[in-house]
């Protein structure tokens, strides 16, 4: 079985300037993959390419073996779930109503959500510890809970690939850790390929199996956390003196010492 998401020599430039070049990698089912790099390195652009929102100018993307350009919107929605960094909801939909929207791609235009769909949504909300919020308007929840509701929605899509853009901004530290643990769990238990873009290297190091490090739109390193976050790479990409340490269970922890001189 091939990789569930494959990028080959991706290149993209905006009207203003260049954004990405020579990006290639493969992600298998059940992997928790991180994309990291300093601000402006092209992470969000890469995620937009992977979600099919924009098309690459060179190279191609294969999702579940099919070229992204040729996948129908409906098939894409069933295959891929995307969580943007900011979500605003103008109307007071409840958490359950938002979560169940994830079931929409599987319905024909004349169909409506079934009781099964609602039960499934409730189940996912329960999994994320949100059962108390199911009937509350999502705008009345805390930002952490609101973020989780959208993760619940993405999970209701039962996608093969889950893409998240900065899922832990504005969350407190416990929430951040919980979210990443959850995502790692999903990847492992459901076989979903989870790709997360984050500027929090510590989290990425701790939870992601492999990661891609970007600098100025070009891949700087690709591999396991220990491999990619070697001191030399951290110096070159982030300009910091840092290293990773392994703990007794094999987990990787990032230790930051100081910014580079000069």
């Amino acid at each position: 079985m091939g990789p569930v998401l494959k990028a080959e020599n991706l290149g993209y430039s905006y009207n203003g300037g260049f954004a990405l070049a020579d990006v290639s990698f493969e992600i298998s089912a059940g992997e928790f993959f991180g994309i990291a790099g300093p601000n402006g390195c092209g992470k969000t652009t890469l995620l937009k390419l992977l979600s099919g929102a924009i098309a690459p100018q060179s190279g191609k993307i294969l999702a579940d073996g099919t070229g992204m350009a040729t996948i129908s919107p409906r098939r894409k929605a069933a295959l891929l779930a995307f969580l943007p960094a900011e979500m605003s909801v103008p109307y007071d939909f409840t958490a359950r109503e938002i979560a169940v929207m994830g079931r929409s791609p599987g319905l024909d235009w004349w169909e409506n959500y079934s009781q099964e769909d609602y039960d499934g949504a409730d189940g996912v909300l329960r999994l994320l510890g949100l059962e108390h919020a199911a009937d509350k308007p999502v705008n009345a929840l805390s930002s952490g809970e609101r973020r989780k509701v959208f993760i619940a929605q993405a999970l209701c899509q039962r996608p093969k690939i889950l893409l998240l853009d900065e899922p832990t901004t504005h969350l407190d530290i416990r929430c951040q850790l919980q979210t990443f643990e959850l995502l790692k769990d999903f990847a492992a238990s459901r076989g979903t390929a989870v790709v997360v873009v984050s500027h929090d290297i510590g989290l990425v190091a701790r939870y992601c199996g492999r990661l891609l490090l970007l600098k100025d739109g070009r891949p700087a390193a690709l591999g396991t956390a220990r491999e990619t976050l070697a001191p030399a790479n951290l110096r070159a990409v982030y300009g910091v003196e840092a290293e990773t340490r392994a703990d007794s269970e094999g987990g990787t922890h990032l230790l930051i010492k100081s910014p580079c001189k000069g």
Partner: protein
Amino acid sequence: MSKKTAAEKIGLFFLAALAVGAAAVFVGPVAHPDAAILLKIRLPRVLAGLLAGASLAGAGALMQGVLRNPLADPYILGTSSGAALGAALALLSGADYGSPLFYVLAACGAFAATAASYLLARTDNRTPAVNLLLSGVIVSAFCGALILLLFALKRDTAFSILIFMMGSITEASRAVLIGAGILFALGMGISFALSRQLDILSLGEEKARTLGVNTEALKLLAFAAGAFLCAAAVGVAGTVGFVGLIVPHVARLLLGPAHGRLSAGAVLLGAAFLTLMDAAARTIAAPAEIPVGVLTSVCGAPFFLWLLRKSKTEYKG
């Protein structure tokens, strides 16, 4: 709210609309009307009021959903100015006020304005919400300018156009009522069919696309349905303001934002509201009549004040 509670509420609104409609038949400037007046004159007028109120509220709910903006009203794409322009052209060409041709041209004007706003806003095969709002303003202004020009050319019909623009429910012939009814059914049919996807659209176009929604087709269909509904309303009541803005708000407060329920409630409340306003309009100053649009505006202003205060306190909290 559960499905059952929502269904109960909607049932209640249905009864209310029915009751208001029935009662309104017996309200009017003639103190003791005979059966002929009741059946031939009052009843069609009450039906017209119910239909126009329902259409406007339905159109308002659609526009507020598809533009993700609770301040949108059914005329936001220049529909009212287009309708008034169509009516002015009809009068200019010698058609009688209130004749089927008059209403057909008004309806065509409504459609044309909506289409113009949509096409103007289109860039790169996309129609961003901001562009739509702006093009609506432009089309409105343009139609308004043309109407003023027509006033200058044929001054004596100016007043009649003004009344049309203020909104007044005069007696509609059976043909016009049936035509409006068909447009209403078409518009609401499309609206209900799009419910699920409109809810998803409120999350933003980018996100909606990742959930498999064809946002451009959705917008096109929603605007078409909105145009049908506006044309139906304009056909029997001129361009009545505020109904399409206030009623969906109230329905949202009572039923929640899910488009299917919201529309069902809005349509019924709108029918009741406008019929009530029209009954008052023809009775308060009897034997004189107040244009119904004046009454709906009088109700609209305090409502907005209340809405503003409510949103202020929410913002603080």
